[in-house]
């Protein structure tokens, strides 16, 4: 039996932060139902809303790839009948996960206080950018703003250039891991005690919490950690070096004097490397620009994957800077079954990704691609909620199911 078989999750919201969190459950057998509508679709369905995309809201690869194994019902929540459908879905669900702005659920009468009165054992998680309380709770940013406010932009890149942040909006990939943990923890708590709970997650707070080291260093010494390229104060050389080919690079980190000797040997023990000023970490840190230039001349004669293998076999920490093409061919990711192919009704064969956890009892299972809008209306309303075909027809006619 799949790990989360029988667990019922209702998802309201859009983008990455909320929906990525529920994938852990969907991929392990939970029933995850997404509510959205063509009147107000998930904005990720519109990322590829360009003239060369003939499939409209069902043709956005990012949405499809982020939401496998989920079911979609299209409900227009601006109509009271639509809110009633969602209320019945909440009666069905063990967990409600939503990432709307804080006022939305209250506006529909679906805030936790109202729902708890009806269903005390409900687990509900809200995960908007800034949390449910406070003077800036209605601030409307996306992940790009989350990365800026939580400090990650300031921390990535070069000191003489813009504060760019690591690629991808980091609060969108970081906060879902916390949300998935909290949902599982709350389900475990409910199983033991029967008690439900409401969890208020601020995406920005999950990011600042992750940066506890930076915040404690500031508190202790007023130190402001700032982006420093690829440097590290505990290792030298430590960086990204050019390799043979176009835009090819290798990452390399030397943590000890012994590793430095091993690297020197790999470079053919040139006289430059034997200079005593490089014998200690302090010396290598002091002269790192010179060292980096020197190592770059060595690495640029090699292909990155081959060189990384040679260096790792010699006991040196190194790895190719992998681009998206490399990732699809990476033998380690293939060994873990990271990419799984499924056929989407409109976009054809697509590579879906797993997350970083493998459980001894069995891997996650990729069953269906991210759903088309309203694809499971009949199944959800009919089979799960017991609406008759006539009632469903009336809801379609009244533009409730759109």
């Amino acid at each position, binding site marked *: 039996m799949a790990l989360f078989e029988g667990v019922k999750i209702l998802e309201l919201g859009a983008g990455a932060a909320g929906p990525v969190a529920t994938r852990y459950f969907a991929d392990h057998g939970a029933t995850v139902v997404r509510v959205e509508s063509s009147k107000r679709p998930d904005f990720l369905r519109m990322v590829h809303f*360009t003239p060369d995309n003939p499939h409209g809201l069902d043709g956005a690869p990012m949405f499809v790839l982020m939401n496998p194994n989920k079911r979609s019902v299209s409900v227009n929540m601006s109509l009271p009948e639509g809110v009633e459908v969602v209320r019945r879905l909440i009666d069905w669900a063990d967990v409600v996960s939503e990432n709307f702005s804080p006022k939305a659920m209250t506006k529909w009468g679906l805030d936790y206080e109202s729902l708890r009165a009806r269903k005390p054992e409900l687990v509900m998680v809200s995960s908007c950018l800034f949390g449910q309380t406070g003077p800036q709770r209605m601030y409307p940013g*996306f992940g790009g*703003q989350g990365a800026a406010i939580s400090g990650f932009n300031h921390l990535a890149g070069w000191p003489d250039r813009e504060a760019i942040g690591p690629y991808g909006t980091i609060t969108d990939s970081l906060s879902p891991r916390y949300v998935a943990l909290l949902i599982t923890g709350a389900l*475990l708590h409910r199983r033991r005690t029967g008690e439900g*709970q409401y969890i208020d997650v601020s995406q920005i707070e999950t990011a600042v919490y992750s940066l506890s080291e930076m915040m404690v260093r500031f508190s202790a010494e007023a130190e402001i950690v700032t982006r420093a390229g690829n440097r590290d104060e505990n290792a030298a050389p430590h960086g990204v070096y050019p390799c043979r080919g176009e835009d090819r690079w290798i*990452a390399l980190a030397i943590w000890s004097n012994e590793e430095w000797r091993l690297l020197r040997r790999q470079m053919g023990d040139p006289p430059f490397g034997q200079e005593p000023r490089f014998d200690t970490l302090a010396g290598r840190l002091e002269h790192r620009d010179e060292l980096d230039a020197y190592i770059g001349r060595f690495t640029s004669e090699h292909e990155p994957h081959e060189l990384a293998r040679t260096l790792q076999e010699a006991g040196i920490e190194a*790895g190719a800077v992998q681009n998206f093409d490399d990732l699809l061919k990476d033998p380690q990711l293939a060994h873990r079954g990271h990419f799984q192919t499924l056929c989407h009704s409109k976009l054809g064969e697509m590579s879906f990704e797993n997350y*970083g956890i*493998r459980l001894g009892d069995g891997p996650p299972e990729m069953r269906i691609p991210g759903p088309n809008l309203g694809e499971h209306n009949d199944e959800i309303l009919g089979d799960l909620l017991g609406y008759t075909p006539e009632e469903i027809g009336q809801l379609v006619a009244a533009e409730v199911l759109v």
Partner: protein
Amino acid sequence: MFDGLRVLDLSEEPGWLTGKILGDLGADVVKVEPPGGDRVGRRGPFLAGQEDPERSLPWLALNTSKRGITLDCKKEDGQRLLRQLAAKFDVLLETFAPGQMARWGVGFEILRQANPRLVYCAVTPFGQTGPYSKWRAHDLVVTAMGGNVAVTGFPDRPPVRCTMPTAYFHAGPEAATGIAMALWAREETGRGQLVDVSMQECQLSTLMTGPGQYAQHHRLAGRNGAVLGRTREIWKARDGWVSFGLRGGQARIPNLVATVEYMAENDMAPEWLRKYDWSEYNHNTLSDAEIERLEGAFGAFFASKTRRELYEQAVERRIMLAPCNDAKEISEQPQLRFRELFISIEYPELGATLEHPVAFAKSSIGGIGIRSRAPRIGEHNAEIYAEIGIDAAELEALADQGVV
């Protein structure tokens, strides 16, 4: 949430956050270090610059809500003690190279015999098995091999990482989630299992389905610096950088309209911009000339204001603009202050009070947040070892032999 759960945390730095998260959720987490403390992991910077493992700021930051014991896994007596301890815990967390624990006689297969309910979580750069499983990697090499570094940075510079270790930040809550999943499974099966976490694989979700999209269209993403997609995301304000997306879609259009209004009130919206029709705006279909014209107008306005002015107006007018904060600005951020994100912890023997982010969420039933400061070296040896019947005299003998 995890009250009563017992976690034996043997992790080195990459796993500290996982143990901290479980401790901050109420679990009883016992941190295991080599005798004398983890000399490598308790790295600098140190409080007041004094090089002393008890003053390691990264250690103090990432080991809250844990108790601490010492144990030498390399000694046979240490291994025996570890086997006895593991029989009393629900979860074991470790970050050693694959196979290392087994070589010490304390691998999952051995420990589960005495404790079938044990959830065993191993966090490694690439996972327990497979062609790269023996490779060594810390943050830089993990993030490089996980695909994030190649696309971070500028076209005219080498790929670049984040200066704080995001490989550990992603793997931390991921591993905690894996542990929680195994605990859920245990409710049904009555037994624990291996939770094998790959830090490299955790990196891939930071790419926002980029590799899967590449498999469709075969166009490699480049390093676009401050540009996201086709338009600029990072802008120069008078005193630093702000983030603002010049992108369309239903959810963003009101903010574009509000920004132009704000600019117009400051006499910085040219007439064509004041008349701009945003209703059909689609950043995907703009011409290069149009992007240049729009970015010129918005950029000139942002450059005329301080980040604080811009952000205050952004909150007021619901504009999606934010300052690129540093640690000081985060510590003063009004919304985070209102929500009491920070807590002061006293360190009397160090003569210091340090402010920590207290939690990552709030629950209606409470129970999320730092419970105690990070332990001193071997601080809880007596009470923990007493649980497996080791008294003060025996503990002293073990200490003399360098086992604890």
